[in-house]
């Protein structure tokens, strides 16, 4: 027992992501330049940046969707991505979408994952009948059903209406606490960053230009003045004068 406690104190939390000297160019234009970053296991990191700053490229590299980079990138074998568009296969019923890529189509597993995102009643419908929020939740269920150690979220709330977005953000916070996976959420919504992140990174000119750790308790409230202050600071960093 004593040794366990001792280990917790002395040993740092292991990394879920380790990136060193990462470069990525598009036709000679450097989008990511000598980027270093590590994300601890279970940490919720939000990556902010203006459009075209390379944040989505970084996420694609971590998701193994872009291999034209150089540098060192280490990620867990078990990882999942949820994109801005839900990207459900339209020809598969919702529950089959959830089990895609698993060794076998396990109905019970799918139902449990769908129940977690409040979609139990939608297991047997075609994706075309889902609302935008439902489709995005199905996409989250599909990501989480494989118990990822790293969850990559590429602006997953950007296409949702304001009300649905608030609910979806709360759902992600809750799911993250339950599953304990590391999360990298890419967004340009500063409020979202302040509400969800353990650590906020602001990307600019291909590197991490600013970094901020948020130790506020959860669940966080938009009305909290501390959140408003963070929001202002992030906007400053992004070069938006308010």
């Amino acid at each position: 027992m004593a040794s366990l406690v001792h280990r917790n104190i002395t040993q740092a939390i292991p990394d879920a992501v380790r990136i060193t000297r990462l470069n990525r160019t598009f036709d000679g234009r450097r989008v990511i330049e000598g980027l270093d970053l590590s994300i601890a296991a279970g940490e919720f990191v939000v990556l902010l940046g203006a459009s075209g700053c390379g944040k989505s490229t970084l996420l694609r590299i971590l998701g193994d969707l872009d291999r034209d980079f150089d540098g060192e990138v280490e990620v867990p074998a078990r990882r999942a991505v949820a994109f801005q568009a839900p990207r459900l296969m339209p020809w598969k019923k919702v529950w089959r979408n959830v089990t895609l890529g698993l060794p076998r189509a396990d109905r019970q597993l799918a139902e449990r994952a769908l129940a977690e995102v409040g979609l139990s009643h939608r297991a047997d419908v075609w994706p075309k009948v889902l609302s935008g929020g439902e489709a995005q939740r199905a996409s989250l269920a599909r990501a989480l059903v494989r118990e990822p150690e790293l969850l990559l979220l590429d602006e997953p709330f950007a296409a949702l209406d304001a009300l649905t977005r608030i609910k979806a953000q709360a759902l992600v916070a809750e799911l993250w606490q339950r599953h304990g996976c590391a999360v990298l959420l890419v967004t340009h919504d500063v409020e979202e960053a302040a509400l969800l992140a353990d650590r906020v990174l602001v990307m600019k000119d291909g590197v991490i230009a600013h970094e901020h750790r948020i130790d506020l308790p959860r669940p966080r409230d938009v009305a909290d003045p501390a959140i408003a202050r963070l929001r202002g600071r992030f906007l400053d960093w992004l070069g938006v004068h308010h």
Partner: protein
Amino acid sequence: MTLMTPFRPAPDLVRLRPAGTRHGAARGLRRAIGPVLLLALWQLASMTGVLPAEVLAAPSTVVGSAAGLIGTGELQAAIAVSLQRVLAGLAIGGGIGVLLAVTAGLTRLGEDLVDAPMQMLRTVPNVALIPLLIIWLGIGEAPKIALIALATAFPLYINVYAGIRGVDQTLVEAARTLGMGRAALVRHVILPGALPNALVGFRYALGVAWLALVFGEQINATAGIGYLMATAREFFQTDVIVVCLVVYALLGLAVDFIVRLLERSLLAWRPSFTGT
């Protein structure tokens, strides 16, 4: 100070009407009006002598001949033979077309090897190959089936290939992030994604299969609808010729109906425009 909405002239309002329920039967009836009208006109022209029987038999005569041909069993036998030819040709041609399309669609090597020759051969009119087919395969069943196979292979090839290459790249990416291997990707993403196009190809192939059948059955046939037509020609039996034409049309229609049913069940997932 009170803020008031400034006065504007009244805009013209139009009443939007709900679509209401259109009865399927009523719509079917409406669709039948055109053909029925055409038939009536034809019958009238025959009865008044405007359309002589040696040019075109009256619809009533055609119905009578059809009844006669069915009574002797000639028509059924002919249909069975022709149907067999179409099915055999379609199976062979369709099989080859789909196989080549999958090869060309899935791999770049396959594309380089298969696509260029297929695109070249596609432009050769199939009917122009009849002399060669006769030299190679004689005048039995083989050249007839080969002609149908040739005609059906291309539409299936082109549409299945286009379907495979048209699969949404974002879905392929999503599949990759789910850890799908190549085989799973093909089975769960690429082939289902190509299905709408494949069915278009299938429908088109069925259409040209009948066309090829008509040409094929001109090659020294001793049975089948084409044979029935050829003998009718010898005796100027325009009624029998029309019966055969109607049979061709009905078979085509029946097959189209089957494909529609197939589409409805296989493509139930597709959100698409269904017409107004």
